[in-house]
């Protein structure tokens, strides 16, 4: 459902405060944004942040953009109300053209007409460390927003827990920032509305929500090689391993990772890996192995622009066609692309169940935008989540005369057993094999086993979910998007509706298989025009819709600079074609 129906894009009765924290890598931009988001969440309000970073450890020009509201607002915005500049070059980049009402906080004594009369850097140094500029920022911006000091202090204590000296410095820094901003006349301008504190809400990123969803889905083994922007998944799973007992393996390379997933999965563990496009390319032979030996696998692919290394820390939706076709030979697969942080959790949990039930790879496609975006979300619920494993029990197997791993069935899905749970042996082979799993050369058996896999692919092709459709389609333009673009397109829709330009929005998070009931084509033919919005150069979704004869598309709006679409950008581009 639309969450922004009455949103006034500038200032309205819904608060929409945009803070951009800018500077060099390693200056604590992310920490400041994270602490603020957490504080806003605890205050009973909603925050959303996205990250724009260079591929380096120190230096350069990075920013975190934090959006705060009394309603969930997760579209990508480039509006700036409060600009924080930790370097002069960041101020030079983002300072020009700020709105009249904006305020600029700077680390140093750098000129800007809307600069606050105090500087963050000296306050940090006075507090005991130049690095505490993060806490000064936290305090200053928190005070401007009217957040209770106690909420901020508690977050400082948690963030620096275990180091009393650091806590002391950062509390001093927080207080000096808080006091400096509180003493400033116009600070009331950015005050957030009072809200009831809701204890349960989470401040969580897309990558973390994928990892959490994996835990809900029963992951017990993860193997992966760190690769931006997927790394938060392995980092999260590793950091919780004492609590969850999930075994996290840092593989020597992505080829090892996917073959480990296959081996662990064969041996009965619920197994997962995550990577980005280049790593996935290395995994493709392993993907084909998983298709051939019919073991479950969950693979998260956090997209970034390609080809090759591309822009390692930036975003794109350019791998959908690659993933749909990846792997030599024909085999079934399921591809999902969560539409927001919340969706990452549920889709990932479901992926594990489907992977095991249908003995297929399930690929979850996020991207840098979604991986690194934090949002305030209602706590995920696990009611109704599947809790059953889809493996034969030991006594079922012991009662069999002979277990055949690839027994012919009508659905093409053969009952699966793990080794070591019964007297039966379990044989799998990447060669074409017979029902027992042994390699064969016989034309007749090869034909029958390929037929079994194709029946399975047909069974899996029925596992579909219709795209979300919002707004009245008949006679109006239909904007089609997928994956992480949902929130931004949805918000652009409500903004344009406010200026009398109505369009309907069709959004896919179930990328493959696509429903073959004609309803997508039906909706598209009801529309006055069909416009696909996707963050790539290759028109991935558009070409799938065309190739699979689901629908013809009139126009595509693409982006190929490694940055996400913003609401304002889509409002302009969609406005032009309507």
């Amino acid at each position, binding site marked *: 459902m639309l969450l922004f129906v009455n949103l006034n894009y500038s200032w309205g009765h819904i608060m929409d405060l945009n803070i951009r924290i800018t500077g060099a890598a390693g200056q604590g931009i992310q920490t400041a944004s994270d602490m603020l988001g957490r504080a806003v*969440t605890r205050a009973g309000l909603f925050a959303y942040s996205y990250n724009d970073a260079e591929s380096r450890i120190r230096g350069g020009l990075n920013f975190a953009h934090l959006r705060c509201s009394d309603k969930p607002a997760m579209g990508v915005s480039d509006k700036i109300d409060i600009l924080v500049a930790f370097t002069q070059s960041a101020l030079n980049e983002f300072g020009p053209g700020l709105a009249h009402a904006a305020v600029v906080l700077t680390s140093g004594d750098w000129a800007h007409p809307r600069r606050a009369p105090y500087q963050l850097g000296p306050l940090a140094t006075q507090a005991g460390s130049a690095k505490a500029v993060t806490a000064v920022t936290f305090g200053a911006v928190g005070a401007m927003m009217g957040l209770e000091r106690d909420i901020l202090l508690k977050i400082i204590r948690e963030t620096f827990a275990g180091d009393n000296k650091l806590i002391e410095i950062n509390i001093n820094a927080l207080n000096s920032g808080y006091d400096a901003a509180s003493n400033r006349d116009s600070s009331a301008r950015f005050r957030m509305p009072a809200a009831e504190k809701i204890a349960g809400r*989470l401040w969580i990123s897309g990558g973390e929500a994928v990892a959490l969803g994996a835990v809900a889905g029963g992951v017990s083994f993860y193997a992966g090689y760190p690769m931006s922007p997927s790394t938060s998944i392995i980092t999260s799973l590793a950091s919780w391993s004492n609590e969850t007992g999930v075994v996290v393996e840092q593989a020597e390379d992505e080829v090892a990772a996917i073959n480990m997933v296959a081996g662990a999965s064969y*041996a009965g563990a619920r197994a997962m890996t995550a990577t980005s496009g280049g790593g996935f390319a290395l995994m493709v032979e392993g993907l084909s192995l998983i298709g051939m030996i019919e073991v479950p696998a969950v693979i998260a692919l956090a997209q970034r622009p390609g080809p090759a290394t591309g822009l390692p820390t930036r975003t794109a939706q350019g791998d959908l066609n690659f993933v749909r076709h990846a792997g030599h030979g024909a085999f079934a697969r399921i591809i999902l692309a969560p539409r927001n942080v919340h969706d990452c959790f549920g889709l990932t949990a479901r992926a594990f169940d489907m992977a095991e039930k249908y003995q297929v790879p399930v690929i979850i496609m996020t991207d840098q935008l979604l991986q690194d975006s934090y949002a305030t979300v209602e706590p995920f619920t696990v009611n109704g989540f599947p809790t059953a494993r889809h493996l034969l029990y030991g006594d079922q197997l012991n009662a069999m005369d002979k277990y055949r791993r690839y027994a012919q069935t009508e659905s093409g899905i053969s009952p699966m057993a793990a080794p070591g749970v019964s007297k039966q042996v379990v044989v799998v082979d990447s060669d074409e094999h017979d029902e027992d799993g042994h390699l064969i050369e016989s034309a007749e058996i090869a034909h029958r086993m390929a037929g079994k896999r194709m029946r399975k692919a047909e069974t899996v092709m029925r596992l579909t979910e219709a795209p979300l459709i919002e707004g009245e389609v008949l006679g109006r333009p239909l904007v089609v998007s997928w994956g992480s673009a949902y929130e931004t397109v949805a918000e652009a829709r409500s903004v344009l509706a406010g200026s009398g330009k109505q369009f309907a929005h069709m959004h896919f998070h179930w990328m493959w298989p696509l429903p073959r009931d004609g309803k997508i084509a039906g909706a598209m033919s009801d529309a006055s025009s069909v416009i696909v919005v996707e963050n790539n150069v290759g028109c991935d979704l558009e070409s799938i819709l065309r190739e699979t004869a689901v629908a013809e598309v009139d126009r595509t709006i693409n982006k190929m600079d490694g940055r996400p679409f913003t609401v304002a950008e889509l409002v302009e581009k969609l406005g032009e074609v309507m």
Partner: protein
Amino acid sequence: MAATLDDYKSDVEIAWCPGCGNFGILDAVKRTLVELDLPPHKVLICSGIGQAPKLPHYMHVNTFDGLHGREVASATAAKLAADDLVVIVHAGDGGAYGEGGNHFLHAIRRNIDITLIVHDNRTYGLTKGQASPTADEGSVTKLQPRGLAMHPMNPLALAISQSCSFVAQGMSARTEHLIGLLKAAIQHKGFSLVNVLQPCVTWDKVHTYKYYEEHCYELGPDYSPTDRMKALELVLAPGPKIPLGIIYTEHRPSYNEVVLKDVPHPLRDRGISPESATRLFPHFR
């Protein structure tokens, strides 16, 4: 009930060349497992591509016949997922040392409790006689008509230099000796490499049964396999003599032992508890 050779009997037709060294290795593996009284359902053999990796099909045993060179990676994870299984890997010299070289190095680092049996015939047999990583410099093959311009890999020296916790070398025709090595390798709690020399009767006219009979010698009781520098000296020694036996062992905890400590295992037997995710929510508040 004690395991018997009959338990391991398979009716799959064997596709090896007559006289292939693989027959001796197959025989030795089956007899080793029986002598260790391991039933087939408690043993997992992982393999990849080539002639050697067909071995598990010629037995009745849990089998993961995966991709070329990736058998050690898959076996590592299978051991972590089902650590109640004895996990053995069969690979050729191409799979283990060529295509899978990186996984080999990292399996040594991990000291995962699996046994890698490399069928080393210095040849890519199935693709019809190209040089393998252990082929002699100067070997003439269809792909190296002017003679191989690369130095052979010394897998034993490589393994010992990286502190591989069990390194042995056998010869396919010396079955009784090989059984002794395989038993020790399987019982060793850590990553065990058993390099098994075998003639390729079809493609290699130099390294014949006769060649190995003339050049191999078995290490005697006076050799102590716990001195790393002595072991290196042994396998780096120039000259035609080829040592057989346990060349190096050391004791360090196995990867599975360390990683699975305080973790409910086998991972295979775990149920699904979606609520376990909700218990992590406090991290995000």
